[in-house]
């Protein structure tokens, strides 16, 4: 990316259990490796049981910022689930916000029961397209399955974030972190998932 806006405000959002805390950890550790300061605000607790969750990651050069990104001030939103992506974009986005989102819906209990309607996924993508400056949509869950396990969708998304070129540091910072954080089969799975995410976003980027 060109000029670095301080602080760079990134929100990682999804549904409790999708591994967004781990993804924000990997992002933060990569930023630290690249020499940046980071502060992270997480939601965990009751919402981990299938509720809406988000992590705020603020990357800066000179000073440390508070853990919460003000509404309307997110530069980047990484959405593990379409509805959560739109929810967070509506609260924290602005016309310059860039989005990386997984296309696989996860239905809230009210929608499973038929009491509420989950919006047509195409309408969600369309709405995100309208609100955001750019939207990278990818089948992260499918790509994670191809990598070996659908649970690795969080690393696919992390790879997509890295591959989007929106961060002031490269994918090698991430792979270094994945190498140290994990071992054995889990490391290999996460590494494959990360690469698939990076490739997916770059392939789409050149197609546009």
């Amino acid at each position, binding site marked *: 990316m060109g000029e670095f806006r301080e602080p760079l405000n990134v929100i990682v959002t999804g549904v409790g259990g999708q591994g967004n805390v781990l993804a924000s950890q990997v992002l933060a550790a990569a930023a630290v490796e690249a020499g940046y300061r980071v502060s*992270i605000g997480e939601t965990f607790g009751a919402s981990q049981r*299938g509720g809406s969750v988000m992590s705020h990651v603020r990357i800066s050069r000179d000073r440390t910022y508070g853990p919460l990104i003000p509404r309307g001030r997110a530069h980047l939103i990484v959405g593990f689930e379409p509805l959560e992506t739109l929810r967070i974009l509506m609260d924290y986005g602005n016309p310059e916000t860039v989005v990386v989102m997984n296309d696989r819906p996860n*239905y809230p209990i009210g929608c499973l029961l038929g009491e509420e309607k989950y919006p047509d996924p195409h309408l969600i993508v369309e709405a995100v397209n309208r609100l955001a400056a750019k939207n990278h949509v990818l089948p992260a869950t499918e790509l994670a399955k191809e990598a070996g396990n659908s649970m690795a969708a969080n690393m696919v998304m992390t790879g997509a974030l890295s591959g989007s070129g929106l961060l002031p540091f490269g994918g090698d910072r991430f792979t270094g972190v994945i190498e140290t954080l994990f071992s054995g089969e889990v490391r290999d799975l996460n590494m494959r998932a990360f690469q698939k995410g990076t490739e997916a976003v770059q392939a789409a980027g050149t197609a546009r």
Partner: protein
Amino acid sequence: MRELLTGNAAIARGAFESGVTVAAGYPGTPSTEILENFSRYDGIYAEWAPNEKVALEVGIGAAMAGARALVTMKHVGVNVAADPLLTAAYTGVNGGLVIVSADDPGMHSSQNEQDNRNYARFARIPMLEPSDSAEARDMVGLALDISEEFDIPVMIRITTRVAHSQGFVDLKEPAPRPLKEYRKDIRKWLMVPAFGRLRRVALGERIERVAAYSENAGVNIVIPGDPKVGVITGGVSYHYVREVLPGASVLKLGLTYPLPAGVIRKFAAGVDRLIVVEELDPYLEDFIRGLGLPVTGKELFPDTGEFSPGVIRRGFIAAGLIPEEEARPVRQFDDMPAVPARPPVLCAGCPHRGVFYTLRRLKLVVTGDIGCYTLGGLAPLEGMDSCVCMGASIGMAHGIDRAAPGLRGRTVAVIGDSTFLHSGITGLLDVVYNNGDTTVIIVDNGTTAMTGHQDHPATGRTLMGRKAPAVDLEGLVRSLGVARVRTVDPLDLAGLEEAVREEVAAPGPSVIIARRPCVLISRQAGPPVTVDRETCTGCKTCLKLSCPAISVTDKTCSVDPVSCTGCGLCVQVCKFGALAAAEGGGNGA
């Protein structure tokens, strides 16, 4: 070395670096990870106590014996520990004693949002409030020094946002402390009235000395700025104030009991207008007003809920300090799709689900308790009538039973295994002792699931990973005098319903132990349930289970093969045989 640490990990690090050798607590969001992190250091002892009162007593004992001690709990845990806390202020310490109270403004994972700064004033113990991880680490060492210097326990009060946020901490080498010598001193430690009166007077003197110290404490910091506005704040709100109103003069208070009256007066004298920004109660504001200083606080900022930069911004707009247009409302379109809410829900395969389904079916009055299983009270399960505090289910069921003849024999208490050991035992003892008829269901998933699967006295393991004697729950409740004790598998709905029907009807106290490990721990995912679309009538009975793997689309039920664990509950509730457990699946079917 510089590391990115959560506030909780930073507190653990601070305790390790400052020579704490004994730590105790009970899991409770947002405090849990302090002890989990601390337990991984070498040369220390850390334990989960059955509840916060015991944890604090362990800490008081360790401090009395001359060690530096750390005790951790969530805000409501301090209520449980309040009895020893208020007298520990009298006795004081030998080795330093720090109590961490992790408050939860906005109630992310709590039943209330009490402001525990009031406890420091109530107990007359010094209180420190860090605003980020680096301060959290530093303040543990400072708290221990203050504790030893002034012979008093010290509270570190954090909030969810400090506990769970991450920031840089420059690690230091640990500085081990030799154990201080223990000398018998009954005038200090034996709080009978005659000695208690003396220690109360001494407490007043000690806290006066801390107040004098507070006037020069390095953690009360003035950030000079525009003299038109002076903001007094502390904790995480400090960061929001700096971001939203960068030019203002700020007094950041880190030692918030006893408050430095002189520092506050001097700061107030140097600014035209004094504003207090604090989450929850007007704790600072009341004190400042008590000094006779004109101040604004809760007129601008709410006294409930968690603060965020947005809340602070709205307050400063209302104060006329930021022009309205700077609020930057988020752009919206009228024709955006509606975004349904996403409340938390019991996991697919959760062993609690069948219990609440059954209780709802039997139309019983259910007093509930604190844990994941409280989610069983939400629609569509709605298998719980109340949730008040840890252990309340049993006493409340007994109270209902004594008060309302019409509800007698229709009421059950539901409590988790960890919660039962925390504070359910005495409730059950009350039922037995007073010839009650209450039926108690202990939903035993073999862990403290809600807070992230901590061990407890019935799991057979300690916080430090050692093997431990596992409490035999059946033997325990029998020993309390409960004659009717039975154990059921909560995935066997017929067996469960029969047990509940019989025990509720039976005179005298009964305990049903519904035992099945937490699905997140056992990871016993069998093959997913399959649906015969020809047979399914779309009756939606299975939806009443509130299972995140089941939905009804195109008028027939469908089961998500990714999230389904094959627990087989839906197979049991389907009246048409449309749902089938795959070969080898259906744990309870």
